[in-house]
């Protein structure tokens, strides 16, 4: 094994998806720095960072749910329409029945759950492919939005707007920064350190030799630097602005869902179903329930995303959420999920989503027209996945390794058997 690989393994953990993730983080940092230079420092200034978060948090939110859908081997094309539908329902109940905003949020989530149950039913219990069910849903709920809203725009009240355009409030002494944002940053810093410390302990308990201390230091130092920088930027923006509420919602959900997918039986089952449904079934996984839950969860998140968007734009309209599904799907695939299911991580998808967001934002700052932005985004998606496929064929998974290849002396390990015949998951169990 090459030295580079070994180092990378200890820095980012042994498994391939971690290595892949590192490649994405690397790419993200590179893109950020590139735009920072091209825009003469506009990209990382507080105002832009804040708008970046509030502008893209709902897409990232969708990416969380989409990751789980894709890992389970499905796809969801209806999220944009569901978001729009829930948005209009919520706006309508607040306008017509003067429902208080927090109750409206609950209603919105409930509507999302019902829609999700509907789609989950067709996918899991009837067995209609998710592509079809959600294609139908895409039309159904887009139509539903226009039916309820008479194709008009409906404004939402002030209180409701907090979830989309609110910020952490100013409290405590005047430090020149937003205190709550500083506190938030501190909490995240502590979490990063604790996580690494616990990781070391776990590795020791597994009997694996814990990596040398300096490795851990690097693993902590880089994220800490990023967090500290971001905290100061977010806390030091224009008075009245700070870290967006929608960003906090996103952050909390990312933590929760990462935990679920990585550390719970339910999360494991999603990967099992996507990896080999028949084997999962024969291991006691309740296939239908998993599929149902995954589809339903996606719709609930879509409902939340729709409400955040409506809150941000202060009104719900017939054009809301168009094309969101594509952004979410792109984020997931850029983040390293496999088209055939069974592979992918929440954090990968978030990084993938951020790559898209920064790209979008940076190009806009540079004054590039939306036509060209689309073209560039399309190419990035294609190249990111093509690069991944290429690496897999070569039996290598890591971006850094391929970057370092010219500097390495040892010959690369050869391609692992590209298409081992047995690897196609058998579709017809032959019984004897």
């Amino acid at each position, binding site marked *: *094994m090459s030295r580079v*690989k070994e180092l990378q393994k200890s820095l980012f953990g*042994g*498994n391939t998806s971690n290595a892949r993730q590192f490649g994405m983080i690397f790419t993200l940092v590179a893109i950020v720095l590139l735009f920072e230079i091209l825009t003469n420092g506009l990209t990382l200034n507080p105002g832009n960072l804040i708008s970046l978060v509030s502008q893209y948090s709902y897409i990232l939110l969708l990416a969380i749910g989409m990751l789980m859908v894709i890992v389970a081997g499905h796809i969801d094309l209806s999220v944009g329409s569901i978001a729009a539908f829930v948005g209009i329902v919520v706006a309508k109940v607040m306008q017509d029945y003067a429902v208080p905003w927090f109750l409206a949020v609950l209603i919105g989530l409930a509507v999302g759950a019902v829609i999700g149950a509907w789609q989950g039913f067709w996918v899991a219990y009837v067995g209609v492919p998710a592509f079809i069910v959600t294609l139908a849903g895409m039309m159904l709920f887009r139509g539903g939005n226009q039916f309820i809203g008479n194709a008009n725009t409906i404004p939402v009240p002030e209180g409701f707007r907090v979830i989309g355009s609110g910020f952490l409030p100013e409290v405590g002494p005047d430090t020149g920064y937003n205190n709550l944002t500083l506190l938030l940053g501190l909490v995240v810093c502590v979490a990063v350190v604790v996580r690494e410390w616990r990781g070391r302990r*776990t590795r020791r*308990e*597994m*009997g694996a030799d814990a990596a040398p201390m300096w490795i851990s230091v690097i693993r902590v130092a880089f994220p800490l630097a990023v967090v500290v920088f971001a905290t100061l930027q977010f806390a030091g923006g224009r008075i009245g602005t700070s870290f967006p509420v929608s960003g906090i919602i996103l952050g909390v959900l990312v933590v929760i869902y990462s935990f679920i997918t*990585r*550390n*719970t*039986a*339910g999360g*494991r089952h999603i*990967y*099992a179903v996507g*990896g*080999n449904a*028949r*084997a*999962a*079934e*024969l*291991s*006691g*996984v*309740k296939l239908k329930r998993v599929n149902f839950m995954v589809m339903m969860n996606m719709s609930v998140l879509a409902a939340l995303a729709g409400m955040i968007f409506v809150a941000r734009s202060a009104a719900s309209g017939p054009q809301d959420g168009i094309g969101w599904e594509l952004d979410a799907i792109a984020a997931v695939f850029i983040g390293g999920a*496999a088209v055939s299911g*069974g*592979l992918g991580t929440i954090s990968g998808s978030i990084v993938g989503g951020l790559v898209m967001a920064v790209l979008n934002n940076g190009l806009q700052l540079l004054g590039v027209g939306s036509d060209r932005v689309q073209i560039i985004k399309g190419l990035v998606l294609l190249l990111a996945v093509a690069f991944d496929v290429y690496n897999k064929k070569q039996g290598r998974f890591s971006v850094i390794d391929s970057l370092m290849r010219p500097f390495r002396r040892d010959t690369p*390990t*050869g*391609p*692992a*058997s*590209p298409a*081992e*015949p*047995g*690897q196609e*998951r*058998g*579709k*017809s*169990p*032959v*019984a*004897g």
Partner: protein
Amino acid sequence: MRDAPVLLEMRAITKEFPGVKALSDVNLVVRQGEIHAIAGENGAGKSTLMKVLSGVHPYGSYTGQILYQGTESRFSDIRASENAGIVIIHQELALVPGLSITENIFLGNEPRRGGVIDWKTANRRALELMALVGLEEDPDTLIKDIGVGKQQLVEIAKAFAKNVRLLILDEPTAALNETDSQHLLELMRDFKQRGITSIIISHKLNEIAEIADAITILRDGHTIETLDVKADGVDEDRIVRGMVGRELHSRFPDHTPDIGEVFFEVRDWTVRHPVASDRLVAKNASFTVRRGEIVGFAGLMGAGRTELAMSIFGRSYGVYASGQIFKDGREIVIKSVSDAIEHGLAYVSEDRKSIGLNLLDDIKTSVVSAKLSKITSHGVIDHVREHRAAEDYRTSLRVKAPTVDEPVTTLSGGNQQKVVLAKWMFTDPDLLILDEPTRGIDVGAKYEIYGIIQRLADQGKGVIVISSELPELIGLCDRIYTVFEGTITGDIPRRDADPELLLKQMTSVKKAQRS
């Protein structure tokens, strides 16, 4: 054969995977027109060597030389080796289930006329090739509708469509029953008459001893020796000695069964075919298992043993029609696999790749996957416990892998089988159903697995072994049921079990008297 000209020489082949040296300095000399067997334990590097030869691992990914027909060959992919007349049939068949026999035979190699596939020629040639391999079937039949034995023949016919000179068969008979295996071996002799050279990998050493002219033995990626079967008077024991490096005196560990009372009983179990609902795959099957007892199920391929077992295991095959299950004297209702696991049942499937494992998993996730509750507390997975459990099984079953973080795809066939076994042992079952548990497993590991089965029985569990190898059933089981076309036709205690009686019961509907 010693004087025949050399067709193939592989010199000092070394092949490394990240963390594993699969082959080191392996040499292989194959002479024109011979049947050359390669033997070795699981993970010895047999399949890898053949993949190097056939271009699956292309030139440049290994070191060493391949001299084929006197010149050095550098195959960049499978196509290149096929053009040179080397055709490999992999351990796992590579047919497309939804296509017909003809379509599969000519897949990627279709006879054309003016750019369009010439189906008339294709069908005619398919019939010729099928006659050559002794396959009697309508060439339009879909692959998924014929049995494994016939599928194997289609693979060989496919090889012949490519004008083969050197045919490589990686464990061709592992999934075949006695008759089909014999037919295949007969076929290989026939090919030899036609001057085709074959390389065969097999863990069925009796076959090797019977058919091969020369045997090369690999151990841990090294060539140990090449034996000339006739001149050296090679028999099974001689091969085993080469493979494991010591004498293996008995194929079954000594065991004195300690059998208790009946704790598991199935009564009048009837199951319909999943599609053709008028066809019954199990008819009024009744059987019992006692504590500490190893019960065998003998039957021909397609007799319905797997279907019966899977249907009992949470109705995971076919449509349940009627029947009852009793455990410890009480009736239990098992409607899903999770119910079955909950009630202490485990089913180790015969087909590890398509239904036994998630090939994206690593070893540790596979091992714990059927009983996550054992490593979770309050729904949260304890990664340390997971790692430890998997590590325990890796050592006790001697899975050949550096760590439990290794993806299961990188394991050799036999080692994957051990992981599947570990996965089900991890569920702590009361009744363990093993479907062809030693398929593709080497002699040494078979012995270990028999030992494991006996230890489980000694702990008071019941074990059901479904196997197509009669000697295995006879050597291992305390009692054997015979199954014919979905009906249990006999219940034979160990002392009466002999191949003749079993075969008779396996092929006739007449009910044997109960013992």
